[in-house]
């Protein structure tokens, strides 16, 4: 009997040793080809500053990632210019998926394009990561298994801005926005949260103009004459420059407090230079000069060295998108699109703004929102965010329950 027990132990021990040695000697897992990413964004006209910024951030991430690769594979990418048109963007996405056979689609600044491509991605079962567009419908009511967002959305920004304005005691508002998906989304979100924070708020009036409308003077002068307590502008990539410039010329923000999402972002303020207005309340989810953590400082240094100027929020999103893609493939150990999607859900990556999670229930990255007011600072060649405060992502994001209900309602 004793002999038998010893021989069993010996057998088990031998097997264990063999498997350990076997594992150590087995070859490391490798992908058999490179990973191909298709980027659709706007590279012409005023929104091009955002598109280029995001691409630069993405490229920087890929440079770092491709040094060691992902299981031996490099991440490559191709770009297509959608010229801020959903029609062109959709056909570009189609070409990238059907012709170029990309593994992942990435883009874009135009929220309408993002929604159009998202519908296509769902049909084709191709993962699509949105990195600048902010309409909350992207991961909210119109979200699905294959679409992700690495940028903040209008629900988060609207809530942050509304609560900040409510704290300051404003209740009589004028809403002015661009008549397209993003304009409607951010304005609705702001007003929704404003009514929640201060139910007694009233709407003095609203104006909607065409995206990229060149002459905003008559619109702004008309709003001045209506004399609201404060104004919320729902303008995005194509219209920000004109709104900010016109506000500065007629001294709008000095006469009436104004709030705009991304007003404090450097991608918006830098090209305007001296033509940027002071005293505008704004939000963004990334600033290169605040907070000054070591991770942020390193990112800014590398970015500046590579591209000559500091990064804005699109670059930050592009950068973390690169890392999300790499880490998801690393975890999935497969080039299969569904494995990639599953790996990406709930994934956390380390970013210049700390650890960011890709929330599983809606595929929305949990990002903080920074609130500030535009102000001149002699240390910088552009306006900066004065008195900045940070709201953590989970305080401003809709709950998973909200998302579930929104998607149900949309069916």
């Amino acid at each position, binding site marked *: 009997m004793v002999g038998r027990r010893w021989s069993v132990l010996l057998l088990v021990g031998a097997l264990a040793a063999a498997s350990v040695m076997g594992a150590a000697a087995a070859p490391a897992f490798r992908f058999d080809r490179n990973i191909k990413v298709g980027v659709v964004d706007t*590279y*012409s*006209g*005023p929104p*091009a*500053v955002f598109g*280029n910024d995001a691409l630069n951030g993405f490229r920087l991430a890929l440079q770092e990632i491709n040094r060691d690769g992902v299981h031996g594979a490099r991440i490559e990418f191709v770009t297509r210019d959608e010229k801020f048109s959903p029609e062109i963007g959709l056909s570009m996405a189609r070409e990238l998926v059907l012709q170029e056979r990309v593994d992942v689609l990435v883009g874009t600044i135009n929220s309408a394009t993002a929604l159009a491509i998202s519908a296509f991605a769902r049909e084709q079962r191709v993962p699509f990561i949105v990195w600048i567009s902010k309409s909350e419908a992207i991961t909210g009511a119109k979200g699905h298994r294959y679409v992700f967002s690495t940028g903040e959305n209008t629900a988060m920004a609207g809530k942050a801005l509304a609560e900040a304005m409510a704290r300051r005691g404003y209740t009589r508002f004028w809403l002015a926005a661009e008549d397209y998906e993003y304009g409607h989304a951010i304005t609705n979100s702001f007003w929704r949260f404003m009514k929640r924070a201060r139910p007694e708020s009233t709407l003095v*009036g*609203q*104006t*909607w*103009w*065409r995206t*990229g*409308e*060149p*002459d905003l*003077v*008559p*619109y702004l*002068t*008309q709003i*001045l*004459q209506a004399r609201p307590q404060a104004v919320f502008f729902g303008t995005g990539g194509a219209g920000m*420059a*004109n709104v900010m*410039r*016109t506000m500065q*010329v*007629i*001294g*709008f923000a000095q*006469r009436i407090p104004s709030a705009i999402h991304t007003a404090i972002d450097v991608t918006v303020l830098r*090209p*305007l*230079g*001296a*033509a940027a207005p002071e005293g505008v309340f704004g939000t963004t989810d990334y600033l290169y000069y605040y907070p000054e953590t070591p991770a942020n400082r390193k990112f800014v240094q590398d970015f500046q060295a590579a591209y000559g100027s500091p990064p804005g929020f699109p670059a930050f999103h592009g950068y973390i998108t690169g890392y999300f893609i790499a880490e998801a493939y690393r975890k999935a150990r497969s080039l299969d699109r569904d494995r990639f999607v599953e790996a990406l859900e709930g994934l956390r990556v380390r970013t210049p703004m700390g650890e960011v999670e890709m929330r599983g229930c809606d595929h929305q990255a949990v990002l903080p929102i920074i609130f500030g007011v535009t102000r001149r600072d002699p240390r910088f060649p552009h306006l900066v965010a004065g008195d900045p405060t940070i709201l953590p992502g989970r305080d401003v994001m809709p709950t998973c329950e909200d998302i579930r209900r929104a998607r149900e309602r949309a069916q």
Partner: protein
Amino acid sequence: MDAAAVLGQLVVGLSRAMILFIVSAGLTLILGVLRVPNVFHGSLYMLGAFVAWTVAEAVGSHPAGLWLALAAAPLVTAAVGLVLERLLLSRLYHREHLMLILFTFGVMLVLNDVVKLLWGPTYRSLVPPPSLQGAVTVLGVALPKFNLVLLVAGPLVGLSLWLFTHRTRAGRIARAAATDRDMVAVLGVDVSRVFGMAFGLGCFLAGLGGALVAPTTSITLGMDHSLLIDSFLIVIVGGLGNLWGALAGSLLFGITQSVGLLVWPQFAVAFPYAVTAAVLLVRPTGLLRSAW
């Protein structure tokens, strides 16, 4: 909505109308004399804005920079137009009318991409000299100071054009050619030279419009699009080839939109189009007598 508000919006709309007038005057001149709807008129406007920016940047912060830009840009666009007309367009005069129109469309496509090639896809800002920055309060409305320049430039251009077409020999010949080119040819005038002059002048005005608008807006690709359709509609509403018509149409456009904002902010931008359609349904040849 009180009287002050209306007056204020009126003034704002007026300054926008001046740009429209300058560009439309050029378009209607070309249309009247050559009978060609110049589809690349908007591209020249855009080119004028970009050239103005380049000149102003090159000169730097010297206050004369803007004035130099305002002088240089129209000359560049006039040159471009003249070269195209002399070398290419003039060879098509004997051809089908449609070919002329399609040719100008082709040039528009080329010019737009040439601008993209030369200046890249990002937008530019032209800041006016410090004396013209900021705003003044006119009739209770905050009007950008530079818009005052527009309010002066418009009538100046209009007056110069009127003097030219009514008091100079060349101008009167142009008017005659617009009405009856065969008769003018019979009288021994080189009609082709008249065409060239009219075309060059029209292109000059397009560039001037672009240069004047440059300090007030983002200078960007695509700025020609809405302006082209607006100026075409203005020319049609005013009467093809009629300079006063271009003025009337521009005023209509600029003012219906800015005052319309007080009435129906949502739909105000469609007011000019609605009014245009209404006018044309009643008087298809335009408000004022057309040149032909």
